[in-house]
Every structure is written in structure tokens, then in C-alpha cells.
């Protein structure tokens, strides 16, 4: 009877463990397995292929460029998201008339499907009829609609900032709410003590708010790093990674490869998986290092 009791926790954790094994571990194993198989375009497995899929992937002309762009993409989007969210969280933590409405409104970009948001931005940037270009025309920023100057998504140098903007736009709500929750956990007496000691506002923020916010900040940023690295719909809907591969990240390349070579695509997924692990470890290292200094 006692032994049975000892097993009781298993009944509670078991289903979760099985679920994780089924929907997380098994696909990972399958993904890695596929990356070592020769699979033709029709999906017929043609045996073990060694590292040939990886060789082909690393030989892709644009591979290095795409990997570098992926990292820049993640860093840019996450950094901007966190900065904007820190400010917004601070704002929404204040009491002001209409705060409830403002908080609700912030949810909108989060609640809407990312794909939908991306398509709407693509439409707004349409060179012929996009509302953003209509405004730019009225402001005299462009001479005419329909030409190259109105086609910001047509060139990587102007498309990339827009892609980053949309990615930040959809990431900010979640991050803000995570930070807002973090702010709510900071006890008021700490601030009172700071006030008594005569700390300035900036000093209070830097020495009290930020350190106490770090757990929430770490989790929010970490989830964003992984989310943004694997982000697909924004870039796909707005540029297909074009012109050429000049706005593509590794996730976009993975999808394009899927159409011609599933094995190589799986290899790309494995590399992606590894990248996320590496980025995560680096990130955790960095945030802990910060803590020791502070």
C-alpha cells in the first residue's frame, strides 16, 4: 500500500510526460532522423544518406548570409521589443484615466493572427494603393504611386526595417504584459525605503525596478528569442524572403527547401534547433553575468 502511494505522483505527472514525449521529443527525433535520410521529392525514402544533406545545405550559395541575417533579425527584434515593452509596461503600471481601455487595446496585435497582421501591412505598403504610400505621397516624400520609390518591400534595404517593425509590433503585447506582471510583484515598501533614502527617480528605476524585474525580463526575452528565431509568417507573407534570398532567415530557407528536398530541409531544421539552443545558452549566460555585476 505504501509502495503504491509512492507511485501516486506518477499518475499526476505521467500524462504530461507522455504528452511531452509524444509532441515534443518524438518529432525532434524524427526531424534528426530525416536529416540523415535520402528522401526524394515525392516523399519516398531512399535509405541512409550520411551527412550529404548537411553538405548540400552548407554549400548553398546564400547559406552563410542567411544565418548571419537570422541572428541580426533575432537581436534587432528582441532588443527593440524589450526596450519598447519596458517603457510601455512602466506607462501601463501608472494609474491614469482610460488605463483599462489602453490595456485592452494593447492586446489587439497579440490577439490578431500574425499572418493576418503581416498581410495587412503588406497591403498598407502596396506601391499602387497602399495607405502608407498614399500618406507619403501627400507628405511629398514620394513623387508618384506605383514606382520603385513607393515599393519599400521590393528592396532589402527598405524591406528589412519594415519586417522588423511588424515583428516588434506583434511581440510587444506579450512582452509588455509579462513585464507588467513583473512590476506588480515588486513590493511598495522597497520604493518607500528608496524614497526615504532620497534616491532619484532614475536611480530608483535602475537599482530597484530593473533588478527586481529581471526574472520576468529574462523569461520574456528568452521566449521572444525563440519565437522570433522561428518566426515564419511575417517574412513569408510580406516578401517570401525576396528579392533573391536577401530578406530570408533560416526558417524561410527551411520552408523553401521543403519543396525540393525534404532531407536538406530537415537538416536546416536541425541546424535551426541547434542555433536556438546556442542562443539560449548564450542568453542565459549573459543575463547571469549581469546579475553578478549588479
Amino acid at each position: 500500500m505504501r509502495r503504491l502511494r509512492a507511485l501516486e505522483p506518477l499518475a499526476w505527472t505521467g500524462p504530461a510526460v507522455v504528452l511531452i514525449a509524444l509532441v515534443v521529443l518524438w518529432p525532434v527525433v524524427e526531424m534528426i532522423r530525416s536529416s540523415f535520410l535520402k528522401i526524394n521529392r515525392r516523399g519516398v525514402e531512399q535509405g541512409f544518406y550520411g551527412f550529404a544533406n548537411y553538405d548540400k545545405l552548407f554549400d548553398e550559395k546564400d547559406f552563410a548570409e542567411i544565418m548571419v541575417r537570422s541572428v541580426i533579425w533575432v537581436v534587432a527584434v528582441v532588443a527593440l521589443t524589450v526596450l519598447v515593452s519596458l517603457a510601455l509596461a512602466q506607462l501601463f503600471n501608472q494609474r491614469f484615466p482610460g488605463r483599462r481601455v489602453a490595456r485592452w487595446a494593447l492586446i489587439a496585435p497579440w490577439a490578431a493572427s500574425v499572418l493576418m497582421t503581416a498581410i495587412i501591412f503588406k497591403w498598407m505598403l502596396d506601391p499602387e494603393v497602399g495607405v502608407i504610400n498614399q500618406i507619403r505621397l501627400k507628405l511629398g516624400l514620394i513623387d508618384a504611386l506605383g514606382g520603385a520609390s513607393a515599393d519599400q518591400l521590393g528592396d532589402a534595404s527598405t524591406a528589412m526595417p519594415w519586417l522588423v517593425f511588424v515583428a516588434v509590433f506583434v511581440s510587444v503585447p506579450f512582452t509588455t504584459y509579462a513585464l507588467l506582471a513583473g512590476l506588480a510583484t515588486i513590493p511598495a515598501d522597497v520604493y518607500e525605503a528608496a524614497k526615504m533614502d532620497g534616491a532619484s527617480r532614475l536611480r530608483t528605476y535602475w537599482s530597484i525596478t530593473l533588478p527586481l524585474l529581471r526574472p520576468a525580463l529574462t523569461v520574456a526575452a528568452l521566449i521572444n528569442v525563440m519565437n522570433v528565431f522561428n518566426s515564419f509568417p511575417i517574412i513569408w507573407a510580406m516578401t517570401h524572403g525576396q528579392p533573391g534570398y536577401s530578406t530570408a532567415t533560416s526558417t524561410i530557407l527551411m520552408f523553401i527547401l521543403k519543396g525540393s528536398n525534404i532531407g536538406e530541409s530537415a537538416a536546416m531544421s536541425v541546424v535551426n534547433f541547434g542555433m536556438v539552443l546556442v542562443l539560449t545558452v548564450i542568453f542565459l549566460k549573459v543575463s547571469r553575468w549581469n546579475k553578478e555585476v549588479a
Partner: protein
Amino acid sequence: MRIKLAGGAALGVAAMLVLSSCGSGSGGSGSSGDQKASDGGQVTLKMVAADYGDGPGKPNSGETFWKGVVDEFQAANPNIKVEVQVINWNDIDKQVATMVQNGQVPDILQTGDYSGFAKDDMLYKVEEVLSPNVSGDMLQKFAEYGKVDGTAYGIPFVSSARALFYNKELFAKAGISEPPKTWDELKADAEKLKKAGVSQPFGLPLGQEEAQGESFLWMLGNGGGYKDASGKWAINSPQNIETFTYLKGLVNAGLTTPNPGTKDRKTVWEDFGAGKVGMVNGGPMSIPIFDAAGLKDKYGVAPIPGKSGPLDTTLGVMDWIMAFNKNGHAAEIKKFFDFFYTGSAAQKISDTYKLLPVTNGGIQKLSSDEKLKPFLDALPNASFYPFQDPKWADVNPEIKQTIGGAVKDDPAKVLGELQKTADAG
């Protein structure tokens, strides 16, 4: 603090595992789905088909079309049940590949290519699943393309051809009396249109959706193509480089869609429908789009201009239907195919989607349609993608992604890279 941080990190790592596993895990090798439902002689045919309509829920969706066909067929053949799964064009090849990998092969597949499956010995021969009187009525040239090593596996399903659409109102406004026949005329007309305030004199979609089609039409205009006469890949032939240099000139002069390498066919056709584009290459399938946009009767159709004269050929595209041999339903499939081609279904698909028929009988029935006539006339002499070459599967996605660079950067270099892809391995 420390505990909180560790908790946060653990949560983060768990979330990471979940998120990153949303990548490209491919399905495993599940058990084979042998659909032989032998109870009571009832047989279920599983069919996968591409959607020619505007998607689920639209009146012209593939589901609606096939339901009509299947209902009629099942009424006449109570022992055979047909289950149709309609998949959109962007996903169908990937999804079918997943089905094959999982051992869940359909009985019938209708999509853009058959040749790979034939090489994998997965298909019935045409003679096993189609009556001679039906296969005899197929356009000979089309049926030829359905053969691998002399044996027919692919059955032509529908076809389409391309021609030049021009906006008559914009042409009148720019003082142009007739559509261009040569590249020089095309450029001159485009300049006139530009002066008359048309933002995109020539609509040039070289983006992901169908860059391989638009490019091919231009290559044909200079006696080029993806392959040379001897069947060798010739993507960076001097003719093709000259073609893209000419196009680059148009682009730089602002006479085309801006940044063609990022523009999809659909967008450019919509712009043409909205009266923003002077000329564009299109097919029968673009007629409903232009008509719906309110351009009905305001556009003309002409042969596509070439370097020194109008093309005597055009891009023909054929879609295929095929029967898989895994589940052993040849007799039932034959009944269904014969029903499809001899009944009203094949005719209905042409009417609904403005796709061209593949049978002599079908072409005769449509020959009175004024708008379709230029395309029907072009069909017998059409040129096709080299889709039977296994390399096409590697080259095609690469063309879609990068060939637009040939009108932006150095044409010889961009085409040279594509040639390398075709020659590799």
C-alpha cells in the same frame, strides 16, 4: 531571487523545446493505409486534387466542383465511393509527399506533375485505367508528354496557354493603335504609356509565385528557353542573357512593375484589373480576374511580342491526373476516369475555371468562345517546361526565388548561378 530566476529559466527552456519543435519535423513511417474495403463489394477510392477555385467556401471551390462530379458518379456506380481531398496549389506537393512518406498513398492524384511518381513505379499505366476511346481523343502532343520511357503514366487533365493582354482604354489614351509585335515596339509603346501617366506600362511578375512562367515567355521571344534544341540545360545561353538585358533596360527606365523580382503574378494581374497596368502576359485563367475587377470588354488579347516578331509558340501548362497502384483499385479507377472524361465533368471544369480542355472533342466545343480562341489556337504549338527532367525539381524553386535578380543585378551572373544548379550532381 535565485530561485525565481532558475524557475524562469526552466520555464523558458521548456517553452523553447515546445516552440522549436514546431519546425520541420516530418511525419514518421506510419502503418500503410490499405483502403481495400471489401465488405459488400463496396470500394472507397481516395482522391487528392488541387484547387482551381478561390479556396474553401467560395462558390467555385474545388470541394464544390468535385462534390458535384462525385455525387453524379456515385449515383451511377453505387458500389464505388469516392472521397476527394482538395488541397491548394501551394501545399499540395508538400502534403502529398508527406502522405507518401507515411504510406498513406491516395488512389487518384490530380496535380501539376506525374513523372516522379512514374519513375518510382507507383503509378498504373494509362492503358490500365483509361478506355482506349478516351485516350484516343486526347491531343496527341499532350499525351506524348504523359510518357516516361515510352510508356504512358500521366493523363492530361486540363491545360492553359499564355497571350498578351492589353488595356484598350490606356492604349487609346496614349495614342497607340495596335498591340506591339516586337520588343522595340513594346518599348516604344511602354514609353508612350508612361508619358500618359500609366504607372506600370508593362506588368512584369518575376516574384516567387510564377517567375518561371514569365521568364520562359520572354526567353521564347528570343529563340531561347531553359534547354537548347539538343535537350541540354541552357539557362545562361547568350539569347537568354540578351533577353534579360533587354528586360533590365525596361525595368531601369521605370517601364515595368517596380522590383519585378518581388512581385507575384496575382498582384500584377490585380493591378491590371484595376487599370494601373498597360500590358501583361496572362492566360485564360486571368479572364475571370480581369472581368471581376470591372475591366470587362476594355482589354484585348494578342500574341506575345518577341524580339523580331510575335511568338509562334507560347507557354503551355498541363496538369495531370494519375492513378496509384498501391491499393489495387484499377477497375474502379477506370470507371471513374472514363466517367470524368466522357461525361459533362471535363467540360464543366473548363467552363468554371476557364481552363483549356485536353481532348479534341473538348476543344471543338469551346472554339466558339471569342476570348478563349487565341489560347485554343496557340495550344497545338505550345512549348512546355522541361518538367520531365528530374533536375527541374531543383531548378524550378531556385528560378522562382532568384531569377528576378537578373533584371536588377548582372543577368549573366544570375542566370549562370541557375545554370550551375541545373548542371550540379
